[in-house]
């Protein structure tokens, strides 16, 4: 159990009092990259510092998928159910092929090595969007074999469905981190860990974005910054922030804050009803339950 505070009227519809909190995995160092795989009924996550990609199945437990993982970070699934990974310390975006091999999808922009891809999401078109802050070049225990930054920007990029084209989506961010689409995919939310804010953009038919505006600005002395971020089916936006996971309605208004203990880094909706919230943390992966489902991963 944990506390839910900052409640707005009606928030009980999303989460009740005394929600459950189950430990899925302990003994990891830096949990991240959570994604639920509906095909394999499995939950995937990473330990960035432990340099491992993990798979966990209810009733079975956790097994290592990839180690070392070049300090992999955010993960999602594409339309074929392939795991797509923001490669962070290894500075690439890569995909697990059906035969088990790894295919690099992106490593450079305009001829220069990426900073350190952090989080990633797949659009219904098949395009892959990912953020590229520089933290994987200097965070203690996260770094790979080249620590030099080459790009002037901290970009958000889009890979075309066939992987042939990589375009810059926005360079508005000091430290772009989590990103997710609204349920209808008309909006793209991107957060900034350094400025502690979420911006929202209108997604255009060609996959580009326009009309960026601040959706929410976090503040306060509590520990925690915008990092992992997802939407539920009603368009509410969940984002790690000071003191826990914040829930906003589509206008940005705060509905509740899940004061999950320790240090949540990211989370993913999962299980058959998409009403479980798997939360990665420093040290643990935990799971809680919500009353409405999240946007399903592919």
């Amino acid at each position, binding site marked *: 159990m944990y506390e839910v505070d900052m409640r707005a009227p009606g928030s009980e519809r999303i989460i009740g009092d005394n929600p459950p909190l189950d430990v899925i995995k302990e003994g990891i*160092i*830096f949990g991240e990259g959570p994604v639920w795989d509906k095909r394999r009924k499995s939950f995937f996550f990473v330990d960035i*510092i432990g340099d491992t990609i993990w798979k966990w199945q209810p009733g079975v437990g956790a097994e290592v998928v990839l180690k070392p993982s070049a300090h992999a970070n955010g993960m999602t699934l594409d339309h074929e159910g392939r795991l797509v990974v923001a490669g962070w310390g290894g500075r690439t975006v890569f995909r697990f092929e059906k035969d088990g091999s790894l295919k690099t999808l992106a490593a450079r922009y305009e001829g220069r090595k990426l900073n350190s891809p952090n989080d990633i999401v797949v659009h219904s078109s098949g395009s892959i969007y990912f953020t590229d802050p*520089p*933290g994987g*070049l*200097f*965070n*203690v*225990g*996260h*770094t*790979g*074999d*080249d*620590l*030099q*930054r080459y790009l002037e920007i901290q970009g958000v990029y889009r890979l075309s469905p066939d992987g042939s084209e990589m375009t810059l989506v926005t360079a508005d961010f000091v430290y772009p981190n989590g990103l997710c689409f609204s349920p209808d995919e008309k909006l793209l939310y991107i957060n900034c860990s350094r400025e502690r804010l979420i911006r929202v953009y209108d997604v255009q038919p060609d996959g580009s974005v326009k009309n960026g505006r601040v959706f929410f600005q976090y503040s306060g002395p509590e520990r925690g910054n915008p990092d992992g971020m997802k939407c539920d089916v009603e368009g509410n936006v969940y984002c790690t922030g000071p003191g826990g996971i914040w829930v906003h309605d589509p206008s940005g208004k705060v509905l509740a804050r899940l004061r999950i203990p320790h*240090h949540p*880094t990211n989370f993913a909706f999962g299980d058959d009803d998409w009403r479980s919230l798997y939360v990665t943390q*420093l040290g643990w992966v935990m799971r809680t339950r919500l009353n409405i489902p999240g946007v399903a991963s592919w």
Partner: protein
Amino acid sequence: MSTTFERVAGPYKGITGGLAWNGKEMLFSAVQEERILRFHPASGTVDNFRRWTGRTNGIAMAADGSVFGAQEGGRHVIHFMRDGSTAPTCDLIDGKHHNQPTDLIVDTKGRVWFTDPYNPTPPYGPPVFPFLDHASVLRLERDERRAWKLRRVTFDTRAPRALLLSADEKTLYVADGEPAKEGPRELRAYPIEADGSVGRHAVLHAFSPGQRGIEGLCLDSGGNIVACGGWKRAGAEPFLYVFAPFGAVLESHVPPADLPMRCAFGGPDLSELYFTTGAGELYRARIGRKGYQRSA
């Protein structure tokens, strides 16, 4: 010969720190700007040697022209390669992340000695790894497969800030002591044993309570120790000292800038002494001495 001082670059944001002469230019760290700058004496201009250095402070040239850096923000010693990339070294000692390295030197065997104190500015990333229960001089050396490994050198330091090797590499000089805390601030000399460990230190110079002590060290051509440090606080003065190897003060200068940080010889025949400052400047002095050229 009269001593002259001139400010040749800066101020930059925050402090300037470590320096390294590459034979033609003086490299120096603008720590908070996360840059290593390059001062060209012929033109008096400054350009970037590296950007995005992760608060690298101390820098030292390796034999092949690459540069090692003490990256305070990332808690490791990094290696700026000649092709523009930056390689990691080893940042674990006995399985634990060391502290925040700040000064370093490369010896003729290619080993990298560095001071690893605590730092008031936290490192990058969520605070996962506690700091070591000691602040020591550590040394990077290659194993038989050329992989870096770390070895602890001092076991009695509290806040090692600057270090230096004698010309014969048989003595390790360490400036130890934290100015913000109680306790001694000393210039120490450790004999280096054949197995690479160090013996009991001698105190070459002890600073009074309230004094800042030494922040930077370099060697002159006669094997004397040039030290910069001090501050104007409490009526004291910033200083440039020259110590004989046994600790006698051969001469002292009061530089025109407060909070001298690090120092290195450069220029024609290494006849110019450069130093950085707490206000983010680069100064050049002529004190009638030349630097020692370590043949790596």
